[in-house]
């Protein structure tokens, strides 16, 4: 027994050498979550650090991880590409609010020999991704691409294999245009795919598309633009074929927005809007006094959110993200004003 005790004491001594006391610093904010807005966030947080002297650590571990860490209260804010469902909101330990930060679009990259421009309609998209249209020479595709000679080869669908906000936006769109998709596949960051091959991340999808003639897949607009990957025009709700661009993406968000900003803007009613895009959000707790957080930290967090939705927006375009439209900023302002400390609003 005595021997065991001695052993335990020495073990404790060894372990204690490696454990550093966790000290909360009032001027450091920690966030985790979505990888999709990471390039923008890292630019914004770098500038904010220089301007305001507040250090912000954001780890791009994925939306799911960000939400889990916020639930465990190990981070000050979480980043996510898919807003929390009602069920998930109920599972959160406290009331949480969504603040939109920018808009991203999802485009179709393809590798069809001899084809450099491709038009797609909602029906064709649903048909291809449900595995019903199997050949590029199918009449449905030829009808909308009359200037192009479509080769008689099989279509290979490439999708994301990792859970992703990009998949969420894509599946949200297809669920809106196809009832069959909605009932059999649904909307989510990971799906039960009816057909096709999976690849990890935007580079994985783009790489596989390059390797397999006849393939089509979806990637983020920023990825396609910065790597000069050709992408397809998509017919929107108004019947116009839209070439995806930052402008068309921003226009798509000019729709009626709910007060909590948990909104999907896919399949927009706007005449010149690109139909496959969505907000990305930062999630924080509405009541900031939890786990003995100092008021300064809450105040710095709110200031940061305000800055991201206002001054910070000027960094979006350069990094190929679409900025928030005016109405979204107004809604975001109200949400930020609703954040409290001990029940009192932090900024007015």
């Amino acid at each position: 027994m005595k021997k065991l005790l001695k052993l335990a004491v020495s073990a404790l001594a060894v372990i204690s050498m490696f454990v550093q006391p966790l000290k909360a610093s009032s001027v450091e904010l920690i966030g985790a979550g979505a990888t999709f807005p990471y390039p923008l966030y890292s630019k914004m947080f770098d500038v904010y650090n220089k301007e305001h002297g507040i250090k912000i650590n954001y780890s791009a571990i994925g939306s799911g991880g960000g939400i889990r860490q916020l639930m465990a209260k190990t981070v000050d804010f979480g980043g996510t590409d898919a807003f929390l469902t009602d069920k998930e909101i109920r599972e959160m330990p406290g009331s949480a609010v969504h603040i939109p930060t920018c808009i991203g679009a999802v485009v179709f990259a393809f590798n069809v020999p001899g084809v450099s421009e491709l038009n797609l309609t909602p029906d064709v998209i649903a048909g291809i991704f449900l595995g019903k249209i199997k050949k590029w020479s199918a009449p449905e595709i030829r009808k909308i691409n009359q200037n192009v000679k479509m080769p008689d080869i099989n279509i290979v669908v490439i999708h994301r294999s990792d859970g992703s906000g990009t998949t969420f936006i894509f599946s949200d769109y297809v669920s809106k245009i196809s009832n069959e998709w909605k009932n059999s596949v649904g909307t989510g960051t990971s799906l039960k795919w009816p057909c096709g091959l999976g690849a990890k991340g935007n580079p994985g999808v783009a790489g596989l598309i390059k390797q397999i003639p006849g393939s089509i897949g979806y990637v983020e607009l920023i990825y396609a633009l910065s790597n000069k990957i050709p992408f397809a025009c998509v017919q929107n709700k108004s019947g116009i074929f839209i070439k995806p661009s930052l402008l068309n993406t921003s226009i798509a968000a000019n729709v009626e927005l709910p007060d909590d900003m948990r909104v999907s803007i896919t399949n927009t009613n706007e005449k010149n809007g690109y139909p496959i895009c969505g907000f990305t959000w930062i999630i924080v707790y509405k009541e900031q006094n939890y786990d003995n957080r100092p008021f300064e930290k809450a105040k710095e967090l709110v200031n940061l959110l305000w800055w991201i939705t206002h001054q910070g927006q000027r960094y979006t375009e350069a990094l190929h993200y679409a900025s928030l439209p005016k109405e979204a900023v107004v809604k975001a302002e109200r949400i930020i004003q609703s954040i409290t400390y001990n029940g009192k609003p932090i900024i007015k």
Partner: protein
Amino acid sequence: MALKKTSKKQEIKKVFSKDPGPWNFYSRAGNKYFLMDWIFKKILFISGVSIFFLVLMIFIFLVLNSMPSIKEFGFRFFLSKSWDPVFEKFGALPFIAGTIFTSFLALLISLPFSLSISLYLGEFSKSGFFSGFLKNSIELLAGVPSVVYGFFGMFVLIPIVRYLEIKFNIEPYGVGIFTSSIILSIMIIPFSASLGREVIELIPQDIKEAGYSLGSTRYEVIKRIVLPYAKSGITAGILMALGRAIGETMAVTMVIGNSNVMPKGLFSPANTMASLIANEFTEAVSRIHLSSLIEIGLVLFIISAVFSIMGKIFIHKFSITENG
């Protein structure tokens, strides 16, 4: 005289067997290094024990966190073919099948190569420039990061396999079970080859010479003496390699096609357990999705443990034949 000797021996034994701790080390027959010795021994002991607790804690963590999924799906989890994160119906069969197909196929492909390499290095060319060069190359193969193998697969193997598939008139994806198995077989060759070589080198020279003296050819010596003698060691190496193939993630993810369905054939896209976890873990928000992924981790943990234990048993068996 003899009596005196034993008593002295017993005295020494008495001093060292009772361990009163470091505080009265001056009484230890003037051995001033005793304290150091004591500390050193304890550090080693603690390190050893902590590894055991680490493994135990990982196991407990996996079991606890997969409880929601175990309760929800029970044994159906292993029989269901559907993996549907949207409607939250989870079954692991496609991934268990994918893992086992790719690993065993990889083993089958790598076996002739690793066996030839270990025979060549252990029996034919034990030293010399070329043999050293070969040994180093194999070690290098073991040290290449798996993502590099993934790139190799993506940019070199996929076009080749696609070409084959077009020749055989199969849907030309280029990715799938076959491609992953080839990548895996290259990755596991170093493991089975080095262990096999070491075992073959250990075979006593006199036994082989006895074989030659009876007029055996070299081939006969290898077939009748070397291989049976090294059998357990080679098998242990194979099992270790299998453990590596089962757990490999990145390289497989890049070339397997990540289709969460039952593999239909040699060339069909599929997915493995490790690859699925790596893919979906970061974005799994719902409790049951996360818990199902962790349960897959638990299955992976148990399968790896089983193969590792089987390897140990074979090595143990080998050491007995060596002594006896």
